[in-house]
């Protein structure tokens, strides 16, 4: 019996919480503002896990993940607004999210294959350019609103959907990390030449990891689009990518627990700052300075973040836990 609980308690707990994600917002126990913040935290956790796979676990440096988010957001939004029959939105929503992830994954493949042919800082430069290209393309395609943006989505992103997406993201990421692929990625980070010389197919694993990361960012983008119900190219600039970088390096590189911490702290602090600045009469524009400034300070003083390369026991599969 004890063994049963030890194995299943987390699953049961997660299932038990699920109805609350529907009931609490609808009954008003969670007010709309808190609901919004919780959803943002969830979406940011997904984005942070996504970027952490590449920048944290693999030790490469992508600075343009907002580009993948944009592709996911636009793909999912176009599907629910133009393709799916009206009124079916809520049921086909997961399909739209998956399509967004898939589209972002394909874009990721296009970036990864050429970038990983060589070692070094190419990825940073290529992803930076990619981010800008995506934004420019979106601005110039008039059919999807150009610089004015794209709208007409129903508010399909509920707390329940975010909850499910976050859990799935964490589950998949954990399984990835604690497999030969995760070990391969970590070995790459430590010593790429030695990794190749113990049989790790370094080029292949880099591409796989990057595609997975891009796909996760794409799904998060789909959720983001159906929360705001309005997206425009300026939502996905390098500033958005900087936010993601900050969440990764704040919470901790190479850590799922760290990703959750980083995303939560960042979201809550930024929301808190909004209120404080309003009270003090400081222009909200200054919030844009906070994230990049924090990122610089973090990279100098605490480059591994709170949980750098450590993990909560909860996220370690039972068979991989250190015996005590």
């Amino acid at each position: 019996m004890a063994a049963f609980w030890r194995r299943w308690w987390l699953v049961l707990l997660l299932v038990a919480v699920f109805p609350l994600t529907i009931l609490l917002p609808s009954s008003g126990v969670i007010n709309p503002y808190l609901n919004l913040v919780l959803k943002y935290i969830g979406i940011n956790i997904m984005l942070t896990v996504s970027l952490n796979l590449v920048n944290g676990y693999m030790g490469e440096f992508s600075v343009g993940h907002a580009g993948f988010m944009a592709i996911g957001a636009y793909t999912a939004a176009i599907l629910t607004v133009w393709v799916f029959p009206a009124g079916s939105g809520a049921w086909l929503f997961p399909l739209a999210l998956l399509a967004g992830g898939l589209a972002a994954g394909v874009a990721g493949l296009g970036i990864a294959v050429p970038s990983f042919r060589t070692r070094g800082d190419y990825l940073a430069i290529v992803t930076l350019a990619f981010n800008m290209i995506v934004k420019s393309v979106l601005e110039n395609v008039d059919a999807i609103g150009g610089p004015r943006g794209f709208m007409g989505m129903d508010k399909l992103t509920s707390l329940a959907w975010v909850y499910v997406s976050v859990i799935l993201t964490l589950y998949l990421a954990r399984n990835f990390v604690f497999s030969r692929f995760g070990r391969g990625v970590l070995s790459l980070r430590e010593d790429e030449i030695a990794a190749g010389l113990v049989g790790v197919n370094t080029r292949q694993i880099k591409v796989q990891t990057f595609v997975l990361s891009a796909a996760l960012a794409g799904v998060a983008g789909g959720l983001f689009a159906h929360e705001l119900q309005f997206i425009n190219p300026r939502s996905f600039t390098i500033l958005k990518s900087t936010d993601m970088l900050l969440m990764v390096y704040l919470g901790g590189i190479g850590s799922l627990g760290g990703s959750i911490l980083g995303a939560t702290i960042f979201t809550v602090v930024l929301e808190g700052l909004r209120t404080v600045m309003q009270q003090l009469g400081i222009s909200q524009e200054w919030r844009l300075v906070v994230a990049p400034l924090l990122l610089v300070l973090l990279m100098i003083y605490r480059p591994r973040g709170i949980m750098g390369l450590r993990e909560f026991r909860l996220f370690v599969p039972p068979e991989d836990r250190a015996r005590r």
Partner: protein
Amino acid sequence: MSFLTVSHLSHAFGGLRAVVDFNLELSPGELVAIIGPNGAGKTTIFNLITGVYRPSEGEIIFRERSLVGLQPPRIVGAGIARTFQTIRLFRELSVLDNVRIAWYGRTRYRLPEALLRLPAFTKEEARIRERSLELLEIFGLAPFAETPSRNLPYGQQRRLEIARALATQPALLLLDEPAAGMNPAEIGQLMDLIQRIRREFDVTILLIEHQMRVVMGIAERIKVLDFGQTIAEGTPTEIQHNPRVIEAYLGEEAV
């Protein structure tokens, strides 16, 4: 049938000719040492065999298959593993993970199976774990399985590197100065370990070493390199009395 045949291997870094017309014939089960002063091109030969560099000239045939132009992971897959002159463990990873990574190339489960933790994944992972722990047991490293490898004492890091190389299940093991930095007692243990590996893992060993005690004690055949050229070849006794070797090591005056 020849096991490993290296013929007319040459490699240059810009104008520096690091290896010149190197030839080597290995039979299965042999233990051959390559010695020579610093900069003689010994490690470069290892790097050429394992695909870190592509040779400027020459051919490397391993079990009737050419290795020239193959990427390192493919060469590991063909059955060649190596250790490094300066330790190159995955420092932040646990001792167990260092060894488990070496199973990467021979693991069959694919990414989707890992992401969903399907039975194919679980079964194979359990086997990898078990086999890795067995290997650590043999090397006396099992008690440190969960320790980050950077926390191991130096001598044990060296042993872990050998364990990691063996985890790829090689037929040919290249050891690059395994005794470097070891004290006399550790060197004695290392020699026993190498002999034991030969017997129990059925591997052919090519060894680079400066410690003459190791080379003369366990090698069956020795090749001597100087400035990229092979200057002598023979049994330990022959090498000890070869005037060209003495000259390369001690300088002309001493002869």
